[in-house]
Each structure stands twice: as structure tokens, then as C-alpha cells.
């Protein structure tokens, strides 16, 4: 045996072989490049109630995430109306999505250590829930609570009014107990559009016809600002009847208002809410830490009642035309 071959043998037994090293390095690279080893993001959906709008938001989010990111998310769903304890579910979640105010109320009380995104919730109820459970909106945001509110900015309805009736000089607007504080701001918005404003504030104890009729009579177009449920339902019929009498178009805040006789409606549909939510969830995956945020609705639905438009002699352009300008 030569001295070289024996040294070679000793050298081979003392150091790792290069092929094994390469194989290990290759495997690690595979894992990090494909993320195969990462667990699915565990989403926990809290849903206020198993009814149409809430379910539509839930299913649309799930479907959208499944389509765009197959197997990336695992969803568990709890209905708040089930009234059970949710400690285990919350502990297992990476991200909590609450759909509706009651769901937000339930989730916040656990003060979970994971981000929460609240959707299908209004500005005021998010503020209320945040104050109730975290002390303030800022504190809630600092605790990684976020919200996508459904309140469409009234400025959008005002802009639509001007687009529908470019010659409109006076815009009538109905406010309720929850929206009366917006009057100064709305006056400015309407004035910026070259229109005068006439407001009527309806309280539950008011005679709605006596108060709305003079404003409707003097207006070229009318916008009821959404308020509490009672005011919305109670005044809708009188608004639409008076609008018919005075031939004043109404821009409403819901599809059913449109079907009942408004000229146009601009609102956040469950689909709009779901789209924005699934985008937020997908973005969140790339920056999981950080404070929460409160977001205005990015998307909106707009529909027209063509029968009403014809009876009022209002020519309508395409939906795309209005959408591009709002």
C-alpha cells in the first residue's frame, strides 16, 4: 500500500462527503423557495348571523382566497348566534375576520393576540366597539385591530347627483339623529358642486311628511342619508311618494330603496365588502405585523331604476360613465 492511498482513506473518513452536503443544501433551498414546509394561514371567521348578506360576504371571501391562493388559507367559521365560548378557536387562529357588529363585539372581548379585521361594519359601530373593548380607536388599532367600513362617503352621492342632473341648482338632503352633526360638512360639499343645499332633520317624534315635503318641493334632487333602521324604513315610503308628486329624483343608499322607486342607488354590496377584505387579507400575509387601520370602502355598487328615469325624463348614460367619474 502506498502512503498516498492510506492518507486518502484517512481523509475520506474524517470529513463529510461533498455529495451529501450538496443534497442537504439543495433540500433547504427547495423548502425556502417553494414554502412547502409553511403551514396554511389559519383564518377564523366570526359571523354575526347566518343570514343572506353575512353569508354572502363570508362565502365570497373564502371563494376569492381559494381561487387566488389555493391551500394557503384554512378557514374556520363561527356564528356568534351560536353563543358558545371561542377560546380554543381563537387560540388556534392566525387572523380573525369578523363579519358584522355583533361578531366584532364578540371577538374584541377576547383581546386576542392576533390581528383582527372587522368588515360589514359601520364607522360608528366600529368606533363604539373599539371604545368599549380597547378604550379608544387608537388603542384598538395599536392592538392590530383593523376595520373596513361600509359607509359610502356621502360626497359620492352628491357627485352622482350632479352627474345625473348637471343643471341641478338645489339638492335636498334628509338627515337623522345619527347624521345631523354632518350638516356643516355636507353643506360645503354640496356648495363645492355648485348647488345650494336644503336639509331636513327627522327625529323619531317628528311628522316626516310635514318636514320632508317643503324641502322636496324646493329641491331638484334629493338624498336621504342612511340613519337608524326605523328612520330609514319609516321615511322611505313618504320620500318616494313625495318625490313622485314633485318629480324630484332620489339617490338612495340600498338596492331595495332603488326597487321601491329611487332613481339611483350607491352602496357597499356584500360583494364589494368581500373583495376589499380578501385583498386586505392577502396583503396582510406579506406584512403580518404592524398596527391596524380603519379603511373607507374602496369599491361601490351603483344601480339605476330605468322606469323612474324614463318617467322623470332623465337620460341615463352607461354605468361605466358614472363609475369612472365617482
Amino acid at each position: 500500500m502506498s502512503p498516498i492511498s492510506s492518507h486518502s482513506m484517512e481523509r475520506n473518513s474524517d470529513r463529510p462527503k461533498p455529495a451529501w452536503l450538496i443534497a442537504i443544501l439543495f433540500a433547504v433551498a427547495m423548502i425556502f423557495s417553494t414554502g412547502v414546509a409553511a403551514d396554511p394561514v389559519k383564518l377564523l371567521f366570526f359571523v354575526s348571523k347566518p343570514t343572506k348578506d353575512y353569508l354572502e360576504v363570508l362565502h365570497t371571501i373564502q371563494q376569492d382566497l381559494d381561487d387566488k391562493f389555493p391551500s394557503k388559507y384554512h378557514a374556520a367559521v363561527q356564528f356568534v348566534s351560536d353563543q358558545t365560548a371561542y377560546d380554543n378557536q381563537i387560540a388556534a387562529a392566525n387572523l380573525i375576520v369578523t363579519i358584522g357588529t355583533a361578531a366584532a363585539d364578540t371577538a374584541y372581548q377576547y383581546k386576542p393576540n392576533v390581528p383582527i379585521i372587522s368588515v360589514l361594519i359601520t364607522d360608528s359601530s366600529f368606533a363604539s366597539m373599539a371604545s368599549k373593548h380597547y378604550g379608544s380607536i387608537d388603542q384598538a388599532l395599536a392592538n392590530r385591530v383593523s376595520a373596513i367600513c361600509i359607509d359610502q362617503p356621502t360626497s359620492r352621492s352628491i357627485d352622482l347627483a350632479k352627474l345625473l342632473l348637471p343643471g341641478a341648482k338645489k339638492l335636498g338632503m334628509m338627515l337623522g339623529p345619527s347624521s345631523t352633526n354632518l350638516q356643516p360638512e355636507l353643506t360645503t360639499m354640496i356648495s363645492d358642486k355648485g348647488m345650494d343645499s336644503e336639509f331636513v332633520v327627522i327625529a323619531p317624534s317628528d311628522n316626516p311628511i310635514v318636514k320632508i315635503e317643503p324641502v322636496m318641493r324646493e329641491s331638484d334632487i334629493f338624498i336621504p342619508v342612511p340613519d337608524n333602521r326605523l328612520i330609514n324604513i319609516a321615511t322611505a315610503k313618504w320620500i318616494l311618494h313625495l318625490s313622485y308628486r314633485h318629480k324630484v329624483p332620489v339617490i338612495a343608499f340600498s338596492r331595495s330603496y332603488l326597487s321601491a322607486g329611487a332613481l339611483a342607488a350607491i352602496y357597499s354590496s356584500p360583494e364589494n365588502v368581500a373583495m376589499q377584505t380578501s385583498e386586505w387579507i392577502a396583503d396582510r400575509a406579506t406584512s403580518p405585523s404592524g398596527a391596524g387601520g380603519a379603511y373607507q370602502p374602496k369599491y361601490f355598487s351603483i344601480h339605476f331604476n330605468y322606469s323612474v328615469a324614463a318617467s322623470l325624463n332623465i337620460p341615463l348614460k352607461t354605468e361605466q360613465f358614472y363609475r369612472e367619474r365617482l
Partner: protein
Amino acid sequence: MSVVPIIMTTRAGRLLQLSPMLLVASQVLSADLPDVQHQRVLTEVDFLVEIPPVSGPTHMDQTLAQTPASVTRIDRATIQASAAVGLIDLFRLVPGFQTYFVDGSRMGVTYHALGDEYPRRLEVKVDGRSVYESLFSAVDWSTIGVTLDDIETIEIVRGANVAADGSNAFLASINIVTRSPLLDSGWMVESQLGSGDIRNARVAYTGTHGPLSHRTTLSFRSNDGFDDVIFRGQPISVDDSSKNSSATFKGLWTPTASDSVEFQVGLSDSDLGIGEREYFTRKLSYKYQYANWSRLMNSGNALQMSLYHNDLDIVDEVTPLFLSEALGVADTSPYWPLPGLPDKLVIDDRNRAESERWDIELRSILTPLENLRAVTGVALRYDSVKGQELFDTPDPLSETSHRMYTNLEWTRSDRLVINAGLILEHKDSAGSYFSYRFAGNYQLQPEHIFRVALNRSFRSPTLLESRQKQVVRYNEAIILDASVISDSEINNEKLRSIEVGYAGYLFDQKVSLDVRLFREQLTDVINERRSGYPDLDNLVNIRDNTDTLDIDGLEVQAIYKPNQQVLLRAHYSYSDIDGETLYTSSPILEIRDLGVHSLKHGAGVLASYRFDSAITLSAMTSYNSATRHYRGGDAENHTRIDLKATKSWTVDRSSVDISFTVQNAGEPYRDFYQHHQFETHYILGFRVAMP
């Protein structure tokens, strides 16, 4: 909700009869007091709230997917597009409905069967107030004081709607919703002049008086009825002209955002020529008062209370008749049937009858669970009739009836909605009985709904049906002639029905389609049977449960309305009656077939087009196959075509319409009686609205 025993007869008992109402009201109000503290925080529930359209057959706001019956809606646009001149012309647009003129004054509307001079099995309401008259056991269309311009919508439920509207809605129900005073302002003047001495006029004023919105209407309608004829070689002077004047007032007050109060008063006077071969004058005087209070709760629940009073006075001016004239025998003749007794006046020149109704109803509309809605109500009704000639007594006859009902709508899933309706009724004369409806709606796709419905209904006899004793007397002891006597043990009519329906939209919602396939089994149907009787002609008609019939049918309704200019409505109905009636019970038993009264095929089309020049052309066609009217004559198959052209102008803010209508542009056809031929009529109309 606990149930207080409802069989009470004392005055204190009648007060206690109201206690179920008070209990319902208190529970609804206490469970859901309006939030007098302003709610500052809005939730998504406030934004997503459904704004209700109009209420459906169950008195809930229901979509196509939720409605448990086939419904035909005739809206304002359809009324204006149609060639209708009077209210009953609109029912030619409804599959399965028969409309006819008994004579120039009396109009009949019935649903696929049993339409006689006074069709009885149809509930008709105006703004929730029943206009069904227990004196006729029917609706007198000349008295209800509603013209075409008063109407906002008409909703017709095809099929038994007893569970929601009570036992008169035995075959179908009609709810006429009049226009809200908020929809118009100022004056409207309207007039129609036409052949057949058609003279119609209407003046209406809509305005406000402080917090009250109101509309006042005065109307006058007249025509000279059917023309004189020579029938089977005999001249018949058809004296069936009619004149009607009416005045109505409708007020609306909304004291708070939650509350609305509507009230109506009306009166009408009619002079009608009535008869088949011999005619007499009937004077009708009708008055009503109606009030309805609605309260909306924060949660969307609602409470309604309605109270109404109808009062009808009838005077028939007939040719007075002495017994000798009726018999053609002098009281000195040996053939005089009452030896020793002198001739006397046996039929007065004036026969008078009255009816009165009071009705109070309390209704709650609740959502006790997320997927469960309920309409629950209790009602108390007092009916009184009086008429010597009809009831053989100068004293009034009265009865009190109660009803409690609930209609539940359970949304079992996104696709399946279950409706269940139950009504418990109690009448002094008929005891207690309950009717129910059970329906399932399955939404195959968002715009295609299939429905299966079962109905079990009872219709109790009216005061006229249960207490009629129409006799001509010589004195207290001697009945000269008995015409109609009600059987003392007359029972409720019964109905079982099953239907399969489809309702849906096609072609991007431009076409709506409704199909109904049904079988109805009616038993103990009230009619008259001839029987022996110890009077001068030895015969009397006994009002009794004499008929049994099965009705199988199919109805199809399609509406195409792609835009404001075009309207096309079409319908077809098939119905086959298989049944029999006990025609004579003594001395000889005779049973007759009811199948001859089938209106096997009915069809109709309304086509209307509005040009840019504000000219509207409309054509209404209706076809009826041959039939025999129930207690009337044979009618051949016929097609009726009505045409209308309207031109509209806007002058300042006023609108002016001139119209020309041709009723029955084709050949004359026989209406209810064979010698009553509906000729072609030409009517010029003028209408101006000055806001």
C-alpha cells in the same frame, strides 16, 4: 299568546272579546317599545334594511320567492295602458277570472266557477276594508266608489286566501289599493261620453291641511244598460239603466316617524234598473268610514289596527201588486183561492233592506327569529241585516264573528321558503272552524321559483244564506208564495285544494311568467234546491248545501315590459268542472250536472305602445269559450276586442289627455242573460290634471 275564550254573548262579554286584541298589542308594544332615546350608533343592520314594496297575500312584504300563491298585480302603468273604462274591465287581464254584466247595473266578477248574479266566493277589499256585503252575499261594484283614477295597484290572489283574508276569500281575493294623497296635488277633472248613454265625470282635489294630506273625490257615472231587444219573437224593453254618484275623502296623518293614520269616509247613491225580463228600480245608498293606524318599531316589527263601518240601504221600487192581479182572478170569482178573504195588496211598491257591518282588527308583523316572520291578527266583526221581504221579519238579524289568524314564513335555506297560514273563525251561526294553507317555495335558480301549496278552507254562510225567508204573505198565518227559504241546518262550504306553481323571470327580467296547475274540491257548496211547499205554486227554493264539484285547471300569465313604451300582457286559463247539484229534492229527486258551467278556455292579451309623440295605442282582447252562466243563460264562445288611443299634452305643469275607446270592436255577444247583448260602444274621454 294566551287565548281568551271567545264565545261570549253578554255586553260585558263583547268587551271581553276585545281582550285578545289588547293582549297582542301589549305584548308587541312591551317587547319592542320605540327607542325614544336617539340611537347614535348605526350598525350594518340599519344600512342593509329592506325597504318594503307592497305587502303580499299574507300581508307581509314578500318577494316572488316567498309568496305562497299565484298573484296577479295590476299596477298604475297597466291601468293607464289598458283600454279599461270601468273597474271590472281590469279583471279581463287576470287568468281564470270571469267578468260580466248581469244587467246594465250589476256587474259580476268571479274566479273560474259559480258566477251567478251575485258571485259570492270572492273577497274584495279596498285599502284593507272589505266591501263584501252580507245582504247580497257578494260585492256590489256600483257602490264601492272607486274609479280607475283612484287606483294605485290591484293585487289578486288566485286561489283560496282564507288563511289571510277570512272565509269570503274562498276562491280568490282582491285587494284594491287606492292612491296615496301624497302622490298627487291639485285638481283633476275627468269626463267620458259615449254611446249607450255613457256619461261619466269625476272631480278630485288633493292637498294638505296642516299636518293632514287628503284627497276628496266626487264622481258620477251613468249609462243606459243593454239595448231593447226582440228575443224569441217577443219585444223586451230592457230598462237597466244606472246612475251612480259618489263622494270619498281620504286622509293621511303621520304624527311621528313611527306612526301613520289613514282614514276614509265615503258615500254613494245609485239608481239601478234591475231584472231579467221585467225590470224595477233599485236605489242604493251606501256609506262607509274607515280608519287604519300603523306603528313601525325600531326592530322593523309593525303593529296595525283598523276599524271600519259599512252601511247599506236598499229600496226596490216595484210595481205594487194585488193578489187578484197576481192570480188573474177576482176575489168574487169561484176560483178565488182564499174564500171569505178579500183581495189585498200583497207586494208593496217599496221593498226596503238594510245591512250594516262593524269590523275591528289588530295585526302584528313580527320577526321573532332571523329566518322566521309572522303576521298574526285578531278581529271582531258585527253584521246586521234587515228586510221584511228577504227575512220575513221587520226585526234586524245580526251575528258576531271572530277570527284569529297567523301566517308564518320560514326561510329554511337560501333556496327553500315555507309558508304556513292558519285562521280560526267563530260565528254564532256556524260555530268554530279553522282553515289553513301550507306552501313550499323552492328557488331552483335566483329567478325561477317552484311552489307547491295545499289549502283547506271553510266558508260560512252569510246572514242572507243562513236566515233568508223570502215569502209573500196574505197575513201572519197564510203564506201565498215562498220563493227562497234557508235550510235551518245549512253548513259551511268546504274546499280542499292543491296547486303546483312556477313564477320566474326570463330574458334579463324583461319577461315575467307565472304558471299555476291546480285541483280544487268543493263540497257542501251553498245553492238552492227546489222542494215541495204548501203555497200557491207548491214549490219553494231551499237554500242549502247542494253542490259538490271538482275543478281542475291551468293558468298561465306572462308580462313583457322591456321599457316604458311597451307593455304586453297575455294569459290563458283552462278549467274543467266536474260536479253535480241537487236541483230538486222533492217531490222528485233531480240531480244536475255542473260541468256545463265550466269556462273551459279563457285567454287575453293586452298590448300597448307609447310613441314619442305622447300617443298611446292599446288593444285588449279577451276570449271566453262557450259556457252556461250559473243561474243565467248560455253564452257562446266569443272574443271581445277593446281598442284605445290616447294623446297626452303637458301645458305648463298641467297634463291633458284625450282618449277614444272602442269597447267590443267585434260582433255583439251575449252576456249573462241571453237577451242581453253587449254591443259596440264608443267612448270619448277627457282628463286634465292641474297641480
